[in-house]
C-alpha cells in the first residue's frame, strides 16, 4: 500500500491513535484487555499488518520515545493548569529559598580562596588561656615554623590600615604585611613583576605588591606602575609586582590594596617599636599548608606537645604565657569574621530550608499521587495497549522532570530576588553573594532528587495497577485505601516537619524579641559618629577639645562626648592588672578592657554614676592618674568593699599609681548577648584624646520630627568639617542602629525561619485539605448510604474528622519529638528562652491544630451536604 503526501511516521501515529481509541471503547464494553486489543486489530485488517511490520522493522529510538514522552507529558500538564501551577509554584518556592540560602552559605562558608590546593590550607590559631582568639608573636611564629612536623610551610600576616599620600590628596588604604613565604605557600603567581620573597622579608625591604584591583584603580593597569614609589605613612615603598585578579588575600570580605614584607614593619612604624623577634607583642595571623598525608586532626593532636616544647625552649612560664593553646581550622576559605558570626545561623537556616524543601516535595508527591489515582485508568489503557510498565514509569518520571525544570527556572529567579532582598536589608555586607555555578549545580541536584522522589511515588502506585480490575472499577478508580497509603504518610510527615519549623521560628523570634527588650544600659537615641583622623596631623587633645566644643554649639545638641570605641567596635584589652589588696588566684583570667572617654561621656549616654565623681577637666596630663570602673569590675575585685580611692597598675611590675575615682552602672559593650566585661574607663585628657585609631563622638540632642533630625545630621557634619576638613566621617547614626547591627545574624535567622514556618503551614494545610477532600469524594457513596440509613451529620463529621485527627495527631507527636532534638541543636543561638520552652511548643502545636481544623472544614462541610439520592445514583 502506498500513502501519498504524508510521512510514513505521521500515518503510523494516526493509526495508533485510532487503535487506542478502539481499544478504549472495547474496554468500556466490558472486554478483557486482550480481547479488546484483538477486536480492535481485527477492524483494521491488512492496513495494520503493514503498519506492524513497519513498526517491528524499525523499533522506536530512545530519543524518539523520549520526545514522545515529553510531548505527551506537556499535554498532560497543560490539561490541568491549576494543578501544574500549584506544583510549580510550591517547588519554585522551596527551590528558590534553598538556592538563596545556599548562595549565602556558599559565599560565607564554602567559597575557597583562588589559590593552589585550598583544601590542604589550614589556619593556625592562637588561643588565650581563657580560650579567646588571639594572635601569635613573631618569635612564636618563627619557632613554630621551624619546629613543627605537620606543615610543609607556615606563613604569617597582619592587616594594617595606612594612609597613602597620592600627591594632591590622601587616601585610606589597607595593606597586608606578609612573611616572605606567603605567596609561595599559597601558590599565587604574579600578574606582573614579581611577588615578595623570603629575602625581601629578611632584609626588611620597603617594597609593595599591588592587588589587581588597586593596580587598575590607581594606575589604570599600566605596566609602568612597576618601579614607581608609593608614599605610605611617611615611608616610600617601591612597587615590584601585581597580584593576579581574583586574589584578594586570605581575609574574606576585607581585600588589601597591597602586600608588604613583614620585615618592613620597623621602618613603617616610623622608627618606632619593632615587633619583630619578640614574644611581647602578638600581632600575627598564621596560615599553614598540611604536609601530604597529614590530616588536620593529626596536626591538631601535635599542637599541644609542640606548644609545651616551645615553652621549654623559650623558657616561658606557662602560668604567665599569653598562649593557652593552638588550634587548627580549615583554611581553604581564608579568614573571615563574617564566617565566625554567620556560620551557626547559616547552618541552622540551611537545615530549616531543607525541611521546607521536604515539605514541598511531600506536598507535590501528594498531589501527584492523588492525580495518578485519577489517572489509573489512563495507565491501565496504556498497559492494555501494550506499553511496558517501564515505559509508563518513564512517562511519569518525564512528567516529573518537566515540572521540575519549570520549577527550577522559576526557583532560580525567585532565589535571585531573595538574595537581593537579603542583601538590601544588609544582613551580609561587604561580601559578594551571587547565584553562581555551584549554586546552580546545587539547585539542579536538589531538584533532580526531588523529581525522582516524588515522580517515583505515583510511578510505584501505577506499577501496582492490575489493568483488569481497575478498568472494571469505573471512572473513579478508587482503591480500597490502605491504612497507611503514601499520601497519609506524607501528611503525617508534613505535619511533623511543619511543627518543627513553627517551633524553631517561635524560639528564634522570641530570642530576637528578648534581645531587643534588653536594656543596653545606655541611651540608644544618642547619635554616634565614627571619625577617622589618621589623615591629619596635630595635637589630639586640642583637636578633641575643639571638636566637642564646636559640636555642643550645634542647635538642639545638649551634650557631646568622646570615646575611643563605639558599641560593638572592640576595645583594647589588657592582661595582668594588679590592684591594691587583691591577690589573684592561680590561672585567673586577669583581663580587663579599657575604654578612653571624655568627661561628658557618662552624662551624654545616660550611664548612671553609682559612686564617686565623673572625670573633670582637671584630670588632664600631669595631674594624678585616675580611672572609673564599672559595677562588674567593682564586684569582681572588691566584693562589696569600697573601691573608691583604691589604686592599681597595668602590670605587677609597675607602681600602682592609677586611682579609682568612680563606679558607673554596667552597660552592654560588645553586643546585647554578653554581659558587660570588666571595664576600666580612662580620661581622654590623660590618654592623648583623638588618636590615629578609631575615635567615636556621641551627640545627645533634643529633636522633634524628621525634619529636625535631618537638619541635625547636616549641622553635625558641617560642624565636624568646620573644625578640620581632614576628618573623615566614617559613619553617623543613632546608637540604636549600631545595636541593631549586632543583631543582624539573629534577625536574619528569625525572620527567615518565620517565613519558612508560614510557608510550611500553608503547604501542610494544602496537603491536608487535599487528602481530606479526596477522601470525601471517594466516600461520597458511603456517606450517601449512611445518611439514607439515618446517620446524622455528627456521624459524618466524625467520619471525616477522625482521619484528620489521627493523621495530624501522629504528625504532631513526631514533630514534638523532632523539635526537642532541634532545640538542642539551636541552643547556642537562643537567648532568654529554653530550647524546650513549653509556651513555644504549646502555641506552635495549637497553631497547627487550628490550621488542621481550617483545612478540614471545607471537606467536612461538603461531606455533610451529600444528597443521599444523588450520591447513590452517581456512585
Amino acid at each position: 500500500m502506498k500513502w501519498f503526501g504524508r510521512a510514513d511516521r505521521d500515518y503510523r501515529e494516526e493509526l495508533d491513535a485510532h487503535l487506542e481509541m478502539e481499544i478504549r471503547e472495547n474496554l468500556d464494553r466490558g472486554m478483557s484487555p486482550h480481547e479488546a486489543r484483538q477486536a480492535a486489530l481485527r477492524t483494521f485488517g491488512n492496513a495494520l499488518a503493514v503498519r506492524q511490520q513497519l513498526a517491528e522493522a524499525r523499533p522506536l529510538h530512545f530519543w524518539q520515545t523520549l520526545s514522545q514522552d515529553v510531548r505527551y507529558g506537556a499535554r498532560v500538564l497543560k490539561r490541568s493548569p491549576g494543578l501544574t501551577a500549584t506544583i510549580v509554584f510550591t517547588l519554585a518556592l522551596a527551590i528558590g529559598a534553598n538556592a538563596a540560602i545556599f548562595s549565602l552559605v556558599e559565599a560565607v562558608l564554602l567559597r575557597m580562596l583562588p589559590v593552589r590546593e585550598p583544601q590542604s590550607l589550614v589556619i593556625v590559631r592562637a588561643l588565650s588561656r581563657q580560650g579567646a582568639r588571639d594572635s601569635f608573636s613573631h618569635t612564636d611564629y618563627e619557632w613554630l615554623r621551624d619546629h613543627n612536623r605537620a606543615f610543609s610551610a607556615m606563613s604569617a600576616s597582619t592587616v594594617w590600615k595606612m594612609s597613602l599620600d597620592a600627591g594632591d590628596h590622601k587616601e585610606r588604604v589597607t595593606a597586608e604585611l606578609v612573611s616572605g613565604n606567603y605567596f609561595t605557600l599559597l601558590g599565587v603567581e604574579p600578574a606582573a613583576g614579581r611577588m615578595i620573597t623570603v629575602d625581601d622579608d629578611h632584609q626588611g625591604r620597603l617594597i609593595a605588591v599591588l592587588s589587581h584591583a588597586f593596580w587598575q584603580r590607581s594606575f589604570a593597569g599600566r605596566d609602568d606602575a612597576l618601579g614607581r614609589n608609593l608614599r605610605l605613612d611617611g615611608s616610600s615603598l617601591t612597587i615590584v609586582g601585581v597580584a593576579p585578579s581574583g586574589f584578594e588575600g586570605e581575609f574574606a570580605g576585607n581585600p588589601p590594596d597591597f602586600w608588604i614584607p613583614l620585615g618592613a614593619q620597623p621602618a613603617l612604624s616610623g622608627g618606632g617599636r619593632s615587633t619583630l623577634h619578640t614574644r611581647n607583642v602578638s600581632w600575627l595571623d598564621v596560615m599553614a599548608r598540611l604536609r601530604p598525608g597529614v590530616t588536620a586532626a593529626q596536626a591538631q593532636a601535635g599542637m599541644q606537645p609542640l606548644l609545651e616544647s616551645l615553652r621549654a625552649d623559650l623558657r616561658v612560664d606557662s602560668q604567665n604565657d599569653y598562649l593557652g593553646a593552638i588550634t587548627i581550622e580549615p583554611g581553604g576559605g581564608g579568614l573571615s569574621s563574617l564566617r565566625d558570626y554567620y556560620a551557626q545561623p547559616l547552618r541552622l537556616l540551611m537545615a530549616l530550608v531543607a525541611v521546607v524543601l521536604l515539605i514541598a516535595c511531600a506536598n507535590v508527591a501528594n498531589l501527584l499521587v492523588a492525580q495518578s489515582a485519577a489517572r489509573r485508568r489512563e495507565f491501565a489503557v496504556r498497559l492494555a495497549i501494550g506499553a511496558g510498565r517501564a515505559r509508563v514509569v518513564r512517562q511519569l518520571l518525564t512528567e516529573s522532570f518537566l515540572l521540575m525544570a519549570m520549577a527550577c527556572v522559576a526557583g532560580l529567579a525567585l532565589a535571585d530576588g531573595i538574595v537581593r532582598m537579603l542583601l538590601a536589608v544588609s544582613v551580609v555586607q561587604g561580601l559578594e553573594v551571587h547565584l553562581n555555578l555551584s549554586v546552580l549545580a546545587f539547585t539542579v541536584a536538589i531538584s533532580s532528587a526531588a523529581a525522582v522522589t516524588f515522580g517515583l511515588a505515583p510511578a510505584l502506585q501505577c506499577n501496582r495497577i492490575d489493568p483488569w480490575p481497575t478498568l472494571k472499577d469505573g471512572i473513579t478508580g478508587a482503591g480500597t485505601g490502605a491504612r497507611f497509603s503514601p499520601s497519609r504518610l506524607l501528611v503525617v510527615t508534613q505535619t511533623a516537619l511543619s511543627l518543627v519549623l513553627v517551633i524553631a521560628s517561635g524560639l528564634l523570634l522570641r530570642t530576637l524579641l528578648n534581645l531587643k527588650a534588653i536594656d543596653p544600659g545606655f541611651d540608644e537615641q544618642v547619635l554616634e559618629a565614627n571619625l577617622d583622623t589618621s589623615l591629619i596631623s596635630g595635637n589630639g587633645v586640642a583637636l578633641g577639645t575643639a571638636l566637642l566644643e564646636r559640636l555642643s554649639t550645634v542647635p538642639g545638641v545638649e551634650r557631646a562626648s568622646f570615646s575611643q570605641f563605639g558599641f560593638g567596635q572592640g576595645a583594647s584589652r589588657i592582661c595582668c592588672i594588679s590592684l591594691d589588696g587583691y591577690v589573684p588566684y592561680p590561672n585567673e583570667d586577669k583581663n580587663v578592657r579599657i575604654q578612653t572617654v571624655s568627661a561628658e561621656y557618662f552624662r551624654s549616654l545616660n550611664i548612671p554614676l553609682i559612686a564617686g565623681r565623673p572625670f573633670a577637666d582637671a584630670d588632664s596630663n600631669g595631674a594624678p592618674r585616675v580611672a572609673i570602673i564599672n559595677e562588674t569590675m567593682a564586684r569582681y575585685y572588691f566584693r562589696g568593699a569600697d573601691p573608691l580611692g583604691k589604686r592599681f597598675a597595668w602590670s605587677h611590675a609597675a607602681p600602682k599609681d592609677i586611682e579609682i575615682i568612680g563606679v558607673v552602672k554596667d552597660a552592654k559593650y560588645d553586643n546585647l548577648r554578653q554581659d558587660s566585661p570588666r571595664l576600666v574607663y580612662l580620661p581622654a585628657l590623660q590618654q592623648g584624646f583623638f588618636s590615629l585609631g578609631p575615635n567615636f563622638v556621641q551627640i545627645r540632642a533634643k529633636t522633634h520630627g524628621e525634619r529636625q533630625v535631618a537638619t541635625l545630621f547636616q549641622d553635625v557634619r558641617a560642624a565636624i568639617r568646620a573644625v578640620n576638613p581632614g576628618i573623615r566621617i566614617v559613619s553617623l547614626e543613632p546608637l540604636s542602629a549600631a545595636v541593631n547591627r549586632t543583631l543582624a545574624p539573629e534577625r536574619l535567622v528569625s525572620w527567615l525561619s518565620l517565613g519558612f514556618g508560614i510557608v510550611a503551614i500553608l503547604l501542610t494545610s494544602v496537603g491536608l485539605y487535599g487528602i481530606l477532600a479526596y477522601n470525601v469524594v471517594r466516600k461520597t457513596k458511603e456517606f450517601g448510604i449512611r445518611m439514607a440509613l439515618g446517620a446524622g451529620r455528627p456521624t459524618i463529621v466524625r467520619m471525616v474528622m477522625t482521619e484528620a485527627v489521627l493523621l495530624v495527631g501522629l504528625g504532631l507527636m513526631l514533630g514534638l519529638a523532632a523539635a526537642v532534638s532541634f532545640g538542642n541543636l539551636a541552643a547556642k543561638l537562643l537567648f532568654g528562652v529554653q530550647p524546650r520552652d513549653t509556651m513555644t511548643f504549646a502555641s506552635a502545636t495549637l497553631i497547627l491544630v487550628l490550621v488542621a481544623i481550617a483545612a478540614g472544614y471545607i471537606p467536612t462541610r461538603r461531606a455533610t451536604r451529600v444528597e443521599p439520592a444523588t450520591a447513590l445514583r452517581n456512585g
Partner: protein
Amino acid sequence: MPKGNRVSLLPGTLEMLVLQSLLFGSRHGHGIATTIQRTSDELLLVDHGSLYPALQRLERAGLIASTWGISDNNRRARFYKLTRAGRKKLVAETGKWEQLVRAVKGVLQARPEEEQA
C-alpha cells in the same frame, strides 16, 4: 449490538459517507468511523483498512483538510474537516445518490400493471 446484520458498503459510497460525517464538525478517523456506524444504527460497518486510503484520496482531491489535534483522551490525533469544495461535492453527491435511490426504489417497487399501462 446487531453485529450479525451488518452490511458492507456499496463501492464508491464510503467517500460520500465520510463527507457527510464531517458536515457538523471536524473529526478524527475513529470518530468518522463511529459516526457512520452510529448514524446507520450500527448497520454499516466501516472497514478501517479502507477508511484511511479513502481519507487520503479525499484530501488529495481537496475535499477535506486535516490538522493534528488533541483527542478527548489527550492523544495526538489527525482531525479532518470539510473544505468548501467538499461541501459542494457532498451536496452534489447527495443529490445524485437520492436520484439513484429513487430510481432504484422505483424499479424495485414497480408493479406489473403499471408496466403494462
